[in-house]
């Protein structure tokens, strides 16, 4: 590197002027937003693709099976040779059993975990526990399914001998375990965003930690906690592998949780792993079931968004 060339004959500005390629650059500037918009539109196209796929194939299904039978029928026997029945209520009931049990497990444990992490735990404890909860949230559902079938069910059977191998209880509990981290971390976010001034006000009046947690923080964070629960319910409704492995394939219109059941998701798996040919009524039925499932989760997601927007606490 020479050091004394400040008297170079040609200045940087002149070099820039020679290399200047404003035409090309401004063409790129005009083109790039369009390309990026096209890429961003892919996510919209995906939604449109999902909705149209479900609608078209469901319409074909409804040319063969009456929508009334589908919506109000209480029997689901698509594989019956002579008189197949396509009433979706048993599948919905199966889904609700799993979801109900999961919520009973996950909501108290999830919220209690959130209270502990946000109000009681030291920074060190939090930094130790939170990554473990992340791991728990990252366990693939097929692994949970394996765990439900080969561990939780036998353990439960030793307590309740009348429990069948395939039942609603065991996968319900395991789906609950699966959604605990979701409820815990979203609820904790809601609680930690409650300003400290509110806590300090209560402590200064002589409140115990428990009173601050239950009477100050929890009410202030309600909308976040409810929204997290609704989102978790949506996850439980759409959960597929745990129920496919451990809940069985016997749709029934009853509230028994000890015997084999079938959920909407598990039915789709049953058909696609079997050999129902393309174009059969059974083939189209998975889209009708998928569409119903999609509507359930969509309503839940919109509800969660509505709750967290509508009741967002302004501090």
């Amino acid at each position, binding site marked *: 590197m020479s050091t004394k060339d400040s008297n170079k004959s040609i200045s940087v500005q002149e070099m820039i002027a020679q290399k200047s390629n404003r035409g090309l650059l401004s063409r790129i500037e005009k083109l790039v937003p369009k390309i990026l918009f096209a890429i961003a539109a*892919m996510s919209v196209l*995906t939604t449109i693709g999902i909705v149209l796929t479900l609608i078209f194939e469901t319409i074909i299904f409804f040319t063969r099976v009456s929508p009334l039978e589908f919506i109000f029928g209480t029997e689901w026997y698509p594989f019956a040779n002579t008189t197949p029945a396509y009433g979706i209520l048993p599948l919905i009931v199966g889904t609700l059993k799993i979801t109900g049990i999961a919520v009973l497990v996950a909501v108290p444990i999830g919220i209690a*975990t959130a209270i502990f992490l946000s109000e009681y735990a030291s920074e060190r404890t939090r930094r130790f526990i939170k990554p473990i909860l992340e791991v728990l949230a990252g366990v693939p559902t097929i692994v949970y399914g*394996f765990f439900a079938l080969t561990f939780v069910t036998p353990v439960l059977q030793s307590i309740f001998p009348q429990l069948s191998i395939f039942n609603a209880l065991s996968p319900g509990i395991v789906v609950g375990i699966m959604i605990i*981290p979701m409820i815990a971390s979203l609820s904790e976010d809601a609680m930690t965003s409650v300003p400290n001034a509110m806590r300090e006000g209560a402590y200064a009046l002589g409140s*115990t930690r*428990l009173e601050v947690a239950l009477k100050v923080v929890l009410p202030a964070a309600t909308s976040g906690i409810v929204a997290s629960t609704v989102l978790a319910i949506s996850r439980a409704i*759409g959960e597929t592998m745990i129920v496919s492995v451990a809940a069985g394939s016997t749709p029934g219109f009853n509230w028994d949780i000890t015997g084999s059941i079938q959920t909407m998701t598990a039915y789709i798996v049953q058909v696609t792993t079997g050999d129902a040919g393309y174009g059969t009524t059974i083939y189209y039925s998975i889209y009708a079931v998928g569409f119903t499932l999609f509507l359930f989760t969509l309503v839940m997601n919109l509800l969660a968004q509505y709750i967290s927007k509508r009741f967002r606490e302004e501090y």
Partner: protein
Amino acid sequence: MKYMDHNVVSSKMKSRLTKNKFFKGLFFAATMFGLIVLAVLLIRIITQGGGYINWDFFMNFASRFPEQAGIKSALIGSIYLMLVVAPVSMFLGVGTAIYLEEYAKQNKMNRFIKVNISNLAGVPSVVFGLLGLTIFVRNFDLGISILAAGFTMSLLILPVIIVASQEAIRAVPRELREASFAMGATKWQTIVRVVLPAAVPGVLTGSILALSRAIGETAPLVVIGIPTILMFTPNHLLDTFTALPMQIFDWTKRPQVAFHDVAAAGIIVLMTLLIIMNSIAVFIRNKYQKRY
């Protein structure tokens, strides 16, 4: 007249503090529940499947006999699948994030795109499977191939990558963009040379975590119709294939208990892959944290 008798308050304080202690114990127990379940799950799987982990397990194809069953085709299939999912999902995800953060104006269309992304994140994976089966396998005629499954998985994890990339791009300070504009750089030059390099660690961390979700995802593969017993490894992207979670699903469903042990062995391999991917993500996150 006094409304508050401090003697009464003091005498009640003791029971209030006891109650506080009791509930603290309860909350702690709830927190430990998740940890204990995870521990039990891991111990159970390792004791059950550990015995099957050996060289043959990695070199063998699937088999009717549990002791000869291996995961060669599933492991290689999963890796192939990631080779499609990683570039496709990151291209779409980062592109969308750049658009939303740097170009999108506050209008109806763009608000719709944002709402749509958060709703897409809530669509069950099995429904994505139906999309993949109809659009990619049948309409695009890709067949039951790595490409069809890869596209499906890419769309499935797209919302996660978009949100993570948006956060990473948003974290790049405005001052850096201003410095670049003030030198006469165009917007795209600023994005490519300043914003993206600064956002890369965040984008990578989010993307790896999203990919680790894709590698364990089973339901879309089932719906697309990926086979479970495959005696060869794929040669190109339009070949059919099987993947780790599919193989585990198949072994779990078998009535013979011995196959459950093989499934546990498969789970050990899958979880090891996940832990490696997560460690890489955490490493990148810690290494490049708080740079501004």
